[in-house]
């Protein structure tokens, strides 16, 4: 049991370091509170830029936090790849530049898997191959209004 957790953790952490550097330009890692007995402690997310102190996810800004959480999700997905992914407004807290980086990463990953991404933000819509429009019609009934090719 402990073996299984440590194997999963080490592999997901290696993915996380890679992906976090890509997305944010800073260095980051996952850390277990207690490596001897992992079930006795929690899991931290830490990051540091050159010259900045190490900070835990609790002290980061809203956008920095959501980038770290996204990197963790992508790291898990790289460990357990699935044929399709559905994301619902994962880019809400990101500024323009970070939203673009995330959209570019999804574009790259979509070569090997299907991505269906709900978003209100321009960088995501522009990076996709096509956009499905949804709207509310008479009688409060949803309908799909068409597919716009990018």
């Amino acid at each position, binding site marked *: 049991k402990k073996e*299984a*957790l440590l194997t*999963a*953790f080490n592999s*997901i952490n290696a993915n996380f370091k890679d992906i976090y550097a890509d997305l944010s330009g800073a260095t980051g890692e996952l850390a277990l*509170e207690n490596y001897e007995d992992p079930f006795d*402690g*929690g*899991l*931290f*997310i830490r990051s540091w830029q050159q010259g900045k102190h190490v900070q835990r*996810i609790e002290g980061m800004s809203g956008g920095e*936090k959501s980038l770290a*959480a*996204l990197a*963790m*999700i992508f790291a*898990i*997905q790289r*460990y*357990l*790849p*699935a*044929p*399709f*992914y*559905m994301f*619902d*407004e*994962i880019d*809400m*807290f990101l500024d323009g530049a970070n939203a673009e980086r995330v959209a570019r990463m999804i*574009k790259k990953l*979509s070569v090997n*898997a*299907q*991505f*269906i*991404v*709900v*978003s*209100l933000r321009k960088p*995501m*819509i522009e*990076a996709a*191959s*096509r*956009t*499905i*429009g*949804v*709207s*509310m019609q008479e*009688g*409060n*009934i*949803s*309908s*799909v209004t068409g*597919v716009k090719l990018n």
Partner: protein
Amino acid sequence: MFIKELEIHNFKSFGKRVKIPFFDDFTAVSGPNGSGKSNIVDSVLFCLGLSTSRTMRAEKLTDLIFNGDGANEAMVKVRFDNADAELPADTEVTVARKVRRTASGYYSYYYLDGKPCTLADIHELLSKACITPEGYNVVLQGDITRIIEVSPLERRKIIDEIA
């Protein structure tokens, strides 16, 4: 393998039958607040048995049936393109689910290529392609905030489930 088409009828705000084509790369879904975007994500989770009614913002399963014109049955069908034989099945695989309101509660039926089956059958088939209820391939609206806000202990549990 990928989702080729999604058919929704009387599930949440989809009071009219809708067929949505999907492709094997990057598709965005956009539209105003409250138009039904998250309901599309919920419809896939519902059909594949990947979630509880709680994650679909409903108190009970029958809340998922369109509440407009007195409909009593919700239906969602997911058609997969399986040309790459990632699933041990035909080149096209269809999973469907219906929920019908009854006097004493509800009936929930699952179908695999048109034939009735159980949730366990669906889970077994999909697990061959790494699609599981604990998997992180579907990220709901608000999941990002949850990962940030939970305690380090809760966060470790995410890795426990995967290991």
